[in-house]
Each structure stands twice: as structure tokens, then as C-alpha cells.
């Protein structure tokens, strides 16, 4: 990935690299998708399935699992604290980036994305299997608490960020940003009462960061999109959001790992929280 001049090129691996490391015991492949049954139809040999909703989120409160629950999840999949976890999935790696971001909440920093995701692997005619792998139980020491403060923004923090005029990136579609629609194009309504965007946010749809084959664009192209056109500055404190935090995880990954921004947070409450919150300020147009 060094030819694309990324700030942290080690955060990406190619499909070729993955194919050459299928039996590497230091590496665990994790598939994370929007299509709930896609993993069951066939996956990369040795890949385990982690579901954004049933595995990573609390099943009652809208929040994430506890560090102890995360450690249990990792151990079940043969992941230890020193395991390098490679994420890939459908939708140009939306949910792979979301799962990676969640792993970072729990302090697991040895994480990478397979560039191009599942679509690229399939397009290249690479092998898929339905065999579910079983690994020896990992040994995982849980953090005392999640590292939410570093990479996650909550409503009050985002509101203060907006009022201070600091950088906000809205990664939804232009129609959602302008408040013309309250759902993603091609998706059902997810229960939002108001349309628009957080005051001061710049519109940079997530898709601008990827090529047609779902791989990430080069550092030069990304700087043009996020800095020249959207007005971000290297080193700036940025909050990204979408509807429920998955597309903005993708942008969070781009800004953090590919462009090297040190203070990027994902507002995972996103528009399904903001657009329903009584009294939340909204801009339209």
C-alpha cells in the first residue's frame, strides 16, 4: 500500500497479502457485513464472523458491549491481545471499518482493513468457503473501561463542537445532508423525525473516498477531497457522523489512518439521535 503514500500504510492490506497469510497464526480475519447472512453463503478461509449489532452492541441499551464482554468475544474467536485482526466486509468495508473502530474502543490497536473488501476478493475470483473455522480459545485481558474519550463523540460533545465552530464532516448522501430525504437512498426509513444536518457540518459523502473497485483513493486524492474541497486542516479536531455511525466509521478510518489526523472522533449516535432529539439545532439546505 506504500505506493498510495498513506500516513499509516500498514493499516491496509491487499487481497494478495491476505491470500498469502491465510494460515498465519498471528493473524485473524474478521468478516463484518450489512447483509446478515452473507458470511454464511461463503467467506474467506479462516475468517470469523463478527456482527455489528449482535456481537458488538449491547442488546438492550443503545451502546457498546463492556470490555469484559469484548474479551469474551475475542477469546471465542481465538483472538488474543497480540493478535493482528484484519477486517473486511460488504458495502466497501463500511461494517469492517465500524468493527475496526469498535475494536479500537477496547484498546485493540493491531487492526487493519483488507483494501477493497469482500467485493474485491470475489471480483478477483478468489476462493470462498462455507466452513466455519474453530480456533483454540484466545487469551484476552480486558481494559478497565472503553476508550470512548479518544475516538468516540457523544451528543453533548458534538453539540459543543458545533457551537465552537470546529470541524464536522457529514458523510451521508447530499439529499440527506440538505434535509430533502430522511433515509439513505436505497434504504428504508430508520425512524428519523427531522431532516437536515448539524450546524456547521461540511458534506463529504463517504463514497468520495473510494474507487469503483471499493479500494481507497490515494493520499493525494483524499487530501484534495477533505482538505482542498472540504476545508479540513491536518491535525484538526474532527467529528464525523452519518445515520448510525457505520459510514462515518469509514471516513474516520480514512482521516485517521490514511491521512494521519490524530484527533478524529466518530459520532455514532449520528443522525438517528440528532434528528430525533428534542431541541437539537438543525441546518437545512
Amino acid at each position, binding site marked *: 500500500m506504500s505506493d498510495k503514500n498513506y500516513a499509516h500504510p500498514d493499516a491496509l492490506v491487499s487481497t494478495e497479502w491476505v491470500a498469502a497469510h491465510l494460515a498465519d497464526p498471528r493473524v485473524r480475519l474478521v468478516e463484518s457485513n450489512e447483509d446478515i447472512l452473507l458470511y454464511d453463503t461463503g467467506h474467506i478461509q479462516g475468517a470469523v464472523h463478527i456482527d455489528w449489532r*449482535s456481537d458488538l452492541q449491547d442488546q438492550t441499551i443503545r451502546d457498546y458491549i463492556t470490555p469484559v464482554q469484548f474479551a469474551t468475544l475475542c477469546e471465542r474467536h481465538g483472538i488474543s491481545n497480540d493478535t493482528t485482526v484484519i477486517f473486511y466486509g460488504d458495502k466497501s468495508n463500511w461494517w469492517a471499518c465500524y468493527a475496526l473502530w469498535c475494536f479500537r474502543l477496547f484498546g485493540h490497536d493491531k487492526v487493519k482493513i483488507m483494501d477493497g473488501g469482500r467485493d474485491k476478493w470475489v471480483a478477483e475470483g478468489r476462493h470462498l468457503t462455507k466452513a466455519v473455522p474453530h480456533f483454540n480459545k484466545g487469551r484476552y485481558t480486558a481494559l478497565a473501561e472503553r476508550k470512548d474519550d479518544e475516538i468516540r463523540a457523544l451528543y453533548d460533545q458534538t453539540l459543543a463542537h458545533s457551537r465552537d465552530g470546529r470541524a464536522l464532516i457529514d458523510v451521508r448522501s447530499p439529499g440527506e445532508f440538505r434535509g430533502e430525504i430522511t*433515509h439513505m437512498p436505497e434504504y428504508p426509513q430508520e425512524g428519523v423525525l427531522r431532516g437536515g444536518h448539524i450546524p456547521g457540518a461540511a458534506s463529504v459523502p463517504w463514497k468520495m473516498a473510494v474507487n469503483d473497485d471499493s479500494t481507497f483513493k490515494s493520499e493525494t486524492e483524499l487530501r484534495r477531497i477533505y482538505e482542498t474541497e472540504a476545508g479540513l486542516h491536518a491535525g484538526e479536531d474532527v467529528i464525523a457522523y452519518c445515520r448510525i455511525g457505520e459510514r462515518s466509521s469509514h471516513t474516520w478510518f480514512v482521516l485517521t489512518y490514511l491521512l494521519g489526523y490524530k484527533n478524529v472522533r466518530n459520532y455514532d449516535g449520528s443522525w438517528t439521535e440528532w434528528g430525533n432529539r428534542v431541541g437539537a439545532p438543525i441546518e437545512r439546505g
Partner: protein
Amino acid sequence: MIPAGLTRIIGLFESLPDAEKRESLISYAASASKHAPRDGEAFDLEDVRKDEECTDTVGVFLKVRDDGGCAFRITLGPQVQTLTKAMTAILCKGLDGCTPEEILNVPADFVPRIVGADLVRLRSQTVYYILTRMKGVVRVWSNRRRTA
């Protein structure tokens, strides 16, 4: 009122443990392409379109037989999710031979009984979409027949 063919499929799914239920859904999804129109088939109504809230194009083809029973063929774009593919095959099989009235009266609340409540999420609501489209085609066909 759920037709007998669909009731049998629902009963089968309800009897399965979760792992086998998933396997059956995958199996149905894999067979969805068998329900596409075949060479030489003629239909009474064809409705091929991509709705704003669906990820890809879906085509619904209706043939009403002389005995009044309906037969459906369905085409799905490549971006359609696995659950939706599975529901396509289930509905084509479970509603085969039903009258237009029976199809229009099928309630949508059977879906969680097949899919399982934890698989029906906001992002998976298109599992209901295929039934809605099938009913839509039947409704148009019925209206045209009434006014002919």
C-alpha cells in the same frame, strides 16, 4: 389468512433450531435464481423497476392460470441481500397456485416466524419488500381485469 403452501414452509422453519434455520435460509437464497423467467414464458403482467428504498432492481412477473391460480417469476439484481433472496424463493414456492384474492390477503407478520426475530432489523426490512411487490402486481392485474 396464510395459504397452505406458505403455512407448510413456516411450520418447517419454526421447527428448526437457529443454526439449521440459517442453513435453510441460505439454501432458499441460493435457489432464488431458479425463480427467474424462463425462455419462452409469457406473462399477464410484468413489473421491473428499482425503487428508491431498495438496493437493486427487482422484476416481478405474474401469470394467472386458467384455474385462477397465480404463478410468479422474479428477477433480482446482484446487490439484493441474502435474506431478500431467500424470501423470494420462499414466496414463489409458498404462494404458487394461490388465487389473487388469497395473495392480497396474506399478512406480512409471518416473516419473523420464518426469518427469526433477531434477523429482522431496520436494515433488513426489504424482506417484506418482495411480498409487497407481488401484491402490487396482483392488485394491478385485478384492477385491469375488473375494468376490462
